[in-house]
Structure formats: structure tokens, C-alpha cells
């Protein structure tokens, strides 16, 4: 009932819907950007800019059918441009801040286990860093349980090519991880 009322009110005033969308997806968009940038400040900038673009669209009276995919697409495009620029000028690679990698090892676990997990995280991160940006994006979205159609829309490829792109990205990541293990 509440949801229905909310939707009706949103239809009258689209800007009301913005708060709900922001509440629901901002954290997810932010985590996705963090995964791409490994730098929370940049990730926050992109998240804010993506939502600002969404807000402007609503203010201009435009309608967006699937806000989640739309915002992810905007964030992906913004990130893609930023990352491309970064690669071009070969900026220093930032290290992943520890607070954004979940500490999966509880304090009770042995120190050695912590080290092993940290080492594995570093290895995976290195493998992910060596992948092309698009592959990294696809893998992040795949992990986030997006459907193929949504992923294709977000990264801007044809639906038919997505399964190939995804399968190749998985294979590449496996290969890179294996390389790191040797």
C-alpha cells in the first residue's frame, strides 16, 4: 500500500522518486566504482556525478524506465573515461584501501590465515588490474547479479555478444590468476 502510494506520488512529482532511488542504489553504485577505481574518493566523485546526472534528467521532466541500470550505465561511462585518461598518462596505481576490502578473517583466526587471505586478495587484485577495463566492468556486474540484458545495456554492447565477452573475461581472469600463482 505504502509502495503504491509512493509510486503515485512519484508520478506526480518525479523528483520525489530520486530520494528512493538514491537510498536503494547509491551504496551499490559506490561499491562498483570502488571496485573499478580502488580509490574511494574517485569512486565517490563518480557516484555523486552519476546521481547528479540522474537528478538533472528528472528535473528536465524526462522519464527513465529502469533507473538502476541507467545510473550504472552513467557511472560506467564516467568511470570508463576516467580510467582511460588514467591509463593514457600512466598515473601511479593506487593500492586498494584496506577498509574497502572486507576483512573476511575474524580476529580469532590465526595470523597465518589472515596473511594467506591477504596474499590471495593481492594476487586476485593484480590479475583483475591486468584485464582490460571492459572485462573488469563485466566481471563486477556479473558478480553483482545483473542480467545479461542489463549488462549489455550498461557497458554498451549488443546482447548477442555479451555471453562471449563474459566468457572471455572469466577465462582471462582465470589465466591471469594462474600466472600469478606460478
Amino acid at each position, binding site marked *: 500500500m505504502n509502495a503504491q502510494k509512493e509510486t503515485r506520488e512519484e508520478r506526480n512529482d518525479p*523528483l520525489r522518486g*530520486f530520494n528512493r532511488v*538514491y537510498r536503494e542504489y*547509491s*551504496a551499490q553504485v*559506490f*561499491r562498483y566504482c*570502488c*571496485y573499478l577505481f580502488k580509490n*574511494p574518493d574517485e569512486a*565517490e566523485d563518480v*557516484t*555523486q556525478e552519476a*546521481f*547528479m546526472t540522474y*537528478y*538533472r534528467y528528472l*528535473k*528536465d521532466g524526462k522519464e527513465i524506465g529502469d533507473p538502476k541500470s541507467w545510473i550504472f550505465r552513467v557511472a560506467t561511462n564516467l568511470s570508463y*573515461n576516467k580510467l582511460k*585518461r588514467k591509463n593514457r*598518462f600512466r598515473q601511479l596505481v593506487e593500492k*586498494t584501501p584496506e*577498509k*574497502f*576490502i*572486507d576483512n*573476511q578473517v575474524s580476529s580469532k583466526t590465526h595470523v597465518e590465515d589472515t596473511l594467506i*587471505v591477504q596474499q*590471495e*586478495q593481492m594476487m*586476485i*587484485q593484480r590479475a*583483475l588490474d591486468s584485464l582490460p577495463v571492459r572485462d573488469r566492468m563485466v*566481471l*563486477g556486474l*556479473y*558478480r553483482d547479479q545483473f*542480467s*545479461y540484458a542489463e549488462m549489455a545495456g550498461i557497458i554498451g554492447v549488443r546482447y548477442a555478444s555479451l*555471453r*562471449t565477452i*563474459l*566468457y572471455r573475461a*572469466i577465462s582471462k*581472469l*582465470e589465466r591471469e*590468476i594462474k600466472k600469478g600463482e606460478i
Partner: protein
Amino acid sequence: MGCLKETKLLQYLDGELPAERETHVAEHLKVCRSCTDRYALLQNRVRQVRKKIDLVYPKGEYSRPFSIPDECPETPGFGRVLTDWVKNSIRIPVPVLGAFSLILVILAAGFFWQQRQINQLRTDLAETKRGAMLYRVVNNDVEPLLLKTDLSEFKPIRNPRIYVEREGESEL
């Protein structure tokens, strides 16, 4: 039906195949041992990859409130988009840009100086009304210096005075 490609198996695994094709794949997997093995292997691979990405995927919370500005900035116009694009895409180091601008300024100054000289000569010519022309001797050949000067407005005179420049010296 032939054996299935990995990409199709992946699509099947993710439940992304249309119902009709899904049935085909399911039936094929029942009868084809090779595909069943590959499917099991793929399932395992995907599970492992998801787990690995999960291990590095950020899990931090994001609770920054989005403050809607009272006056939301308008959608940037063409000029703003263009300047932003130039700023973002053309990033020339400052010394190079400085040197380049300096060269441009020198060239422009040279061009204007030349124009000024020509204009000066034209004015001189117009003032004297004598139809004097400036020539230069190059390889014992005389070539006019003011090719662009329109002399049609001057009346032809019998013995025009000719300035000849020879190796830096001007003769009359």
C-alpha cells in the same frame, strides 16, 4: 544437435536462455557425457571466479547524504561541453604549450610586421604619385618586390623611377 559451446553452457548456467533453447540444452546434457562433464567443470569455474571476485569486491558502506541543491545547475550547454572536452582530452604539458604559444606569437608578429611594411610602401607610393617601384636584383634578373600592389590607380609616366636593391645597397 551438436555439442554445445562453452558460451552457450554459460548462458544456460545463468538461466539466460529462452525457454525453448533451454529445454534443448537440458535434453542434450542428459544424453551427452562430454557436454555434461564440461558443464560441471564450467559450473565449478564460475563458482570459483565469483568467489575470487567476491574476495576483493569492496563491501564498505556508503551513507553520504545526497544534498539536492536548491538551484540545480542547468544541463551544460554546447560551449561548456566543448571546453570541458578540450580540457579533458587535450593535456599538453605546460612548457610545451608555452613554447608553442611563444612561437605562434613570434610568427604572428612577423606576419603583421611584414604587412605593415607593405602597407607603408603602398602609402609611400601613393603619396609620391610618381609610380616608383621597388625592384630587387636576383641573379642578374630584376624582380618586383611589390607584386601584390595594385598600381592601376597610378597614371603611367614616361620615365618611372626604379629603385634597385643590389646586395643590400639601394640604387636610384
